[in-house]
């Protein structure tokens, strides 16, 4: 048997005609390498900010609406695109079951994240027509009742205002090395002026060492495992944009983060490496990370932080999770409850609304199913960890065994909002529909 010929017959590149692009396009690309779009390249935890922060953000956005970014001065040139706004056309809604309504998302914008921000439901994503180098993002406010997109805003992905934030980290990549730096972009709440501060972190930009961020409690937290000073956490003020604390951290690759008024909670994820503890807590201004849950063989699968509460799914594997709750900075758990086979991967919500997730059910385990598969919305009682199935979602072909991903769902004003099903469009992730589940 001629295995070489057999092998050649399945050459994936066989029959492909390769067109050589103009070399100038490569040269143009080389000096200023664009990094991943920060909002979607990192895991950003749901934000909860005090009232003054909301007011600042609202004021900033109001000024932005009045003046527009094009007219705003900038203390330092950065790749902020002009913000354009368009009203969205009406989109038909359809009821797909008791308490479940779906709406098609606009095809010209690839919304791939939904979150509660500034007391509104915010959809964000990539601009469909943008080239890789444009770093252009889109955001829209969603009316939770009508499921209409009230206003679509386009601009630079480095612009905090696009995502309803006052500060954001901006990554800059060295053209001839894997060195990268982070500055903090800040919107002046009085003038709406967007500016970038000095470099606050230098790190090695490798697959496992990308910075991870979380908003919460009036802070932006930035962690990177491979800074020039070793694993490091920055506590950045959401109002001033200044670094208020720098914390030397344990070595955690691809951790998960969640922040609340008691500080940052950082979990050693299933993608990380062995660490003495699986969950650490960093109170604001403390300068130290304290291990809360020990266990080198454990992983943190999800974290939800709000107010003074933190919930976590922890276990040796997805299907062996225990749901933990901590209050304040007390290292003793309020409860530990076993997950009953739902195997959540991402959880949203808070104390008032409860915790919510969407999972394939019955669990897929490691199976791949190419036909539409049932999913259920599960509520986790925030006070006991008890899980209850609240609704069935429309069936979709699910991409794999992994369930809900970060930014795919949000709970707002009594309903769970879920983006499904995912699709790929020229390398960007998008979702076709928005589903509202009202238990």
């Amino acid at each position, binding site marked *: *048997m*001629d*295995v*070489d*010929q*057999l*092998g*050649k*017959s*399945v*050459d*994936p*590149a*066989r029959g*492909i005609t*390769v067109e*050589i*692009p103009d*070399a100038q*396009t*490569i*040269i143009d*690309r*080389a*000096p200023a*390498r664009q990094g*991943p779009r920060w909002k*979607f*390249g*990192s*895991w950003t935890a749901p934000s909860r900010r005090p009232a003054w922060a909301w007011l600042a953000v609202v004021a900033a956005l109001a000024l932005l609406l009045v003046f527009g970014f094009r007219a705003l001065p900038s203390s330092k040139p950065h790749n902020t695109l002009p913000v354009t706004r368009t009203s969205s056309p009406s989109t038909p809604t359809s009821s797909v079951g008791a308490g479940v309504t779906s709406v098609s998302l606009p095809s010209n914008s690839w919304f*791939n994240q939904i979150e509660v921000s500034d007391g509104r439901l915010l959809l964000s994503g990539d601009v469909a027509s943008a080239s*890789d180098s444009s770093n252009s993002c889109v955001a829209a406010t969603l009316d939770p009742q009508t499921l209409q997109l009230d206003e679509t805003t386009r601009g630079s992905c480095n612009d905090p205002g696009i995502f309803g934030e006052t500060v954001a980290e901006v990554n800059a990549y060295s*053209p*001839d090395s894997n060195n990268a730096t982070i500055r903090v972009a800040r919107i002046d709440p009085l003038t709406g002026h967007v500016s970038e501060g000095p470099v606050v972190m230098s790190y090695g930009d*490798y*697959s*496992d060492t*990308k910075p991870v961020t979380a908003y919460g409690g009036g802070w932006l937290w930035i962690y990177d495992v491979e800074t020039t000073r070793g694993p490091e956490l920055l506590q950045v003020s959401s109002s001033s944009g200044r670094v208020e604390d720098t914390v030397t951290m344990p070595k955690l690759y691809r951790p998960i983060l969640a922040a609340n008024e008691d500080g940052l909670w950082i979990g050693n994820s299933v*993608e990380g490496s062995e660490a003495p503890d699986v969950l650490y807590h960093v109170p604001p201004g403390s300068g130290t990370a304290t291990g809360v849950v020990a266990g080198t063989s454990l992983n943190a699968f999800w974290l939800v932080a709000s107010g003074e509460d933190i919930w976590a799914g922890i276990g040796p594997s997805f299907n062996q999770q225990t749901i933990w709750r901590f209050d304040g900075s007390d290292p003793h758990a309020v409860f530990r409850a076993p997950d009953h086979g739902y195997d959540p991967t991402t959880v949203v919500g808070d104390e008032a609304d409860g915790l919510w997730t969407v999972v394939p059910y019955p669990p897929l385990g490691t199976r*791949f199913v*190419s036909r539409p598969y049932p999913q259920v919305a599960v509520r986790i009682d925030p006070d006991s960890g008890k899980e209850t199935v609240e609704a069935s979602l429309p069936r979709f*072909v699910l*991409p*794999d065994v*992994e369930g809900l*991903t*970060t*930014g795919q769902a949000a709970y707002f004003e009594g309903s769970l909002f879920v983006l499904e099903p*995912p*699709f*790929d469009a*020229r*390398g*960007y*992730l998008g979702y076709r529909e928005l589903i509202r589940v009202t238990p």
Partner: protein
Amino acid sequence: VNERGDDDNPRQRFDDLYQANYPAIFRYVFRRLAPGSKIEDAADITAEVFATAWRRIQKVPASPDDRFWLYGVAGRTLQHHRRSHSRRERLKLRLFSEAALGQSVADDSAVDADRVRDAIASLKASDREVFSLIVWDELDNQAVARILGCSPNTVSVRLHRARARLREQLSEPGLRESGISDVVPGRTKES
């Protein structure tokens, strides 16, 4: 003055390198992307490889080593591409794979080709890389040794092991050789 001791016009040197090697590097990249990946994905990564070459044009060795240098950069760029995917980005990769699975299921005539693909995919990674560089990229043992940073003898051992393993897997009942299009009897390479 570059490492070769001359002071060529870097733009001209890059253009020559680019024109001579783009198709080979593109195919090398395309073959190693996730199943179902698009031409655009391969083009993007290939562009990244040549962007690196342009940034480091003074360090690119002279021909024929320049091609091996490009293969090395391409391998590292691909590795970085795979490992740098966040959870969200891996979702996209799975979507690619899902699309590819759908295509193969729909095409009954490709069943045996799938079996060959599976057999190649089941090879030990180092053996698979040698086999694909020899068979798909049509490089000789010396070139593969340069790219992989090992001895030609090691390449021979790995290739022998890969072929033996493939023969063993594909000789099991059920394979319809005639079901694979464009299979020409006879050997094309032997080492």
